[in-house]
């Protein structure tokens, strides 16, 4: 074949370019450890999501010292959970699946970007070093309100971040001769033990107690008051632990059934 000498030179230069591109990308994968979204996530049918241990309750979970996992669900036209809160300087693995059509999970202005396909679980591990607020959007057209599919990702200072929850069990109504029991339960979703001062107030009664909650455990504090001491009528209570507060009202009335159901755990 008759090929001009310059053409041979260019052919060689082209091969150098091509190999150079492949080499850069391989360096990114191997040298820097950048990994692609792939098939390491399991499969999950969209109608199994609600029963699924991870995706049935979309949430953030601590799995190691500075390691967190986020189980997120994309659907028309929202993300769950929203907002997603994680601590700075930690390694976060997002597990994302879809309830319906194809979506994406894109933390705007970063390389944290993956498709979300129904039936599949996208797994992406990233490290957020600095605290900050990020937009989380779906970049795959998913229907008429696709442009409204938006969530928040908050990367918090270590001190501001916790996975502590406060749950309160209190009766709605009590007979005048009965007892009112208010139980505040502090759950520590993180791995390290936390110290919390739990305060429960009802009428003039106040209970303040310091508790140590081990990682992944919960501790309860109960305040018991005689209804007779409060008298008939509505009485407000509050319970707090750290910066979490819950409040509600208990009525002391004649002829009510003592039920502890409907305790305020909003």
């Amino acid at each position, binding site marked *: 074949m008759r090929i001009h000498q310059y053409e041979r030179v260019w052919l060689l230069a082209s091969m150098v370019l091509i190999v150079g591109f492949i080499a850069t990308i391989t360096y990114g994968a191997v040298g*820097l450890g950048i990994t692609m979204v792939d098939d390491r996530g399991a499969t999950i049918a969209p109608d199994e999501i609600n029963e699924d241990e991870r995706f049935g309750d979309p949430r953030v979970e601590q799995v190691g010292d500075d390691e967190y996992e986020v189980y997120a669900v994309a659907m028309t036209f929202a993300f769950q959970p929203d907002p997603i809160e994680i601590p700075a300087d930690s390694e976060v693995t997002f597990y994302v699946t879809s309830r319906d059509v194809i979506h994406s999970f894109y933390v705007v202005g*970063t390389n944290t970007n993956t498709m979300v396909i129904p039936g599949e679980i996208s797994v992406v591990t*990233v490290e957020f070093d600095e605290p900050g607020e990020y937009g989380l959007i779906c970049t795959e057209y998913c229907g008429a309100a696709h442009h409204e599919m938006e969530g928040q990702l908050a990367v918090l200072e270590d001190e501001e971040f916790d996975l502590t929850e406060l749950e309160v069990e209190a009766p709605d109504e009590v007979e005048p001769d009965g007892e009112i029991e208010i139980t505040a339960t502090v759950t520590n979703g993180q791995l390290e033990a936390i110290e919390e001062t739990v305060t429960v107030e009802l009428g003039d009664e106040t209970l303040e107690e310091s508790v140590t909650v081990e990682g992944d455990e919960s501790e309860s504090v109960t305040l018991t008051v005689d209804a007779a001491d409060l008298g008939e009528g509505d009485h407000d209570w509050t319970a707090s632990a750290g910066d979490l507060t819950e409040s509600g009202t208990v009525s002391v009335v004649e002829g009510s059934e003592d039920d502890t159901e409907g305790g305020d755990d909003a």
Partner: protein
Amino acid sequence: MSNVARQEDPASVERIEHDEFDPVGTLALIAFYFAVLVLLWLFTYFVEFLGNVPTPVVVA
């Protein structure tokens, strides 16, 4: 090499065959293109991409 009638083009002043034609201009242009590609690539990969943190990494 066949010599089919060349179209009349008043602007063409001479006729150059393959072996007498040395495409130095092409070589110059394409060398420039090569340089542009390399620079753009390095910039886009190492500045734009690697600067756009965080990037998905291997789980240890």
